[in-house]
């Protein structure tokens, strides 16, 4: 018989599923996206007067998740940053109500279009990520 690994029950695992892209951290985001993040951040922190160049230099040091959600809020995309790591996932989720009547091809094209506008040019793929929140 095949040997199966034991599962450990835990309610603190999280997953993110969809058609989209993954970035190895905030620094890996496209320039257009970084600029949009920068603008959102400046809107929120009027008293912070740093340049876009300074912002980029500090991208790896802070968690910009909340601004990512702001940047994509008018699209069909959803984002998730993985806790304790640098990974950023941006995708159209299968559960999105607006895409239930679309073919998978149409959903992929829509994700590509919206991601292209945000500076992502590397193509869209289906992702099913899971992690342990600890």
């Amino acid at each position, binding site marked *: *018989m*095949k040997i*199966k*690994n*034991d*599962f*450990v*029950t*835990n309610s603190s*695992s*999280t*997953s993110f*599923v*969809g*058609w989209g892209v993954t970035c190895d951290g905030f620094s890996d985001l496209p320039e257009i996206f970084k600029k949009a993040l920068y603008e959102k*951040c400046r809107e929120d*922190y009027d008293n912070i007067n740093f340049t876009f160049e300074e912002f980029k230099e500090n991208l*790896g*040091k*802070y*968690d*910009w*998740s*909340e601004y990512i959600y702001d940047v994509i809020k008018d699209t069909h995309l959803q984002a998730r940053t993985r*806790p*304790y*790591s*640098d990974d950023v996932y941006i995708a159209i989720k*299968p*559960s999105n109500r607006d*895409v*239930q*009547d*679309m*073919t*998978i*091809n149409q*959903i*992929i094209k829509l994700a590509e279009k919206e991601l292209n506008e945000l500076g992502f040019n590397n193509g869209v793929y*289906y992702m*099913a*990520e*899971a*992690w*342990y929140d*600890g």
Partner: protein
Amino acid sequence: MKKKLDYVTNSSSTSFCAWGISIDSCFESLPETVKMMIYKQYVEYRKECDSEYLSYEEFSDGVEGEDWTWFVDEVFEKINLTGTVFCGGGVTYIGISPDQIPENKTILEAKNETKQKLQELGFSVDKFEYILESWRD
């Protein structure tokens, strides 16, 4: 702005995403058609290993320690569905995952076809839903 937390490696989580049903992980409660499909998969596997195999009755009784859950993945994959057993909760999930849907089909069409397929297999689809689960291996 929030200061970033330290990075902790963890790559041992698994996710399951599908439109489908959740059932008890109990062989007895499976529809007869599905029980037979699982048994056939078991026999196929034993033959591939040049090993003896149990009769359907012995396999169903489970007295010889054969675990039917090993064959769930392959059985449902053959009919373009996905099935997985979540041992921690004693639950089996069966459905269609987003990446199994042909590119020229809508999600709605795929959901309806899956519902019909599950009904034909003898499952109740009263609680057909979007399932998104993850667990630590």
